[in-house]
């Protein structure tokens, strides 16, 4: 291949430039399309980042220690609302009346920190 000849061939090759107005129309159309695509990408990344941050915050609130959940689920009687408290009192009476083993029932009530039982214990120890 004759390099110089090839170079000259390329340099001398004729062309006709595209129409300026049509080129500009395409140019701005493409530019706006790319801008929209870029904004879509930025919104996507932002949304993903928010989901990740919220996920991390949520998972940081979780723990492997079951006592943490037990402590919030088995709240002491004194912090119960009136309706629940009444129900627990009725349940306690029912358990005491119908239990085969009264000591086991009392031990259970003591375990859930049922107030009358706790008070009774305190009085006994005093």
């Amino acid at each position, binding site marked *: *291949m004759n*390099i*110089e000849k*090839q*170079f000259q*061939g*390329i*340099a001398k*090759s004729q*062309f006709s*430039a*595209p129409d*300026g107005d049509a*080129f*500009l129309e*395409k*140019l701005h159309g*493409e*530019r706006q399309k*790319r801008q929209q695509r870029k904004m879509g990408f930025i919104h996507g990344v932002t949304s993903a980042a928010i989901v990740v941050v919220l996920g991390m915050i949520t998972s940081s609130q979780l723990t492997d220690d079951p006592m943490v959940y037990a402590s919030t689920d088995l709240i002491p009687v004194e912090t119960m609302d009136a309706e629940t408290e009444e129900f627990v009192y009725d349940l306690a009476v029912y358990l005491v009346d119908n239990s085969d083993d009264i000591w086991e029932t009392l031990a259970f009530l003591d375990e859930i920190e049922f107030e009358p039982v706790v008070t009774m214990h305190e009085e006994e120890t005093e």
Partner: protein
Amino acid sequence: MKTDHELIREFQDGNNDAFDELVKRHLSETYGFFIKFTSDEVEAEDLAQDVFIKMYKALKKFRFESKFKTYLFRANINMSNTYLRRNKWRNLLHLDQAPDQGYMDTSLEDEWRRKELWDAISLLPPRQRMVVTMRISQEMPYREISNIMGISENSAKVNYHHAVKALKEKFEN
């Protein structure tokens, strides 16, 4: 007639028509650069479009330290390098589509040779590649090449000489 710098100033002040005027003024040489480079009208138009889209952003921060023409030419060179890199794999994958030497018509043969030549140019060291690209696509004088590249005129000549020598060796072998 307004100068390129005046148009850029107006564009920076929010006049988009000034940008359009600038594009129209330099469209022919930019398109010409890429058509010689790719021999493909569609690709040349796409590459010219990419350059001007980049310009639309970049000109907002243009600091008037160089001529716009020089700035645009550097952008063209960068775009051509990106194009060559992008097409390196594509060309490798399409080697099997090389026309059979015995049955080629002249125009196809010319086109294929030109493609081979640009592929070889893409493998030259960056400085040599830039000098050769400017010489053959725009027939640019060495002085202007040296201004654009920020090297001496002699260095531009030496780089061109080495590039041609390397290309000759490649095709003779």
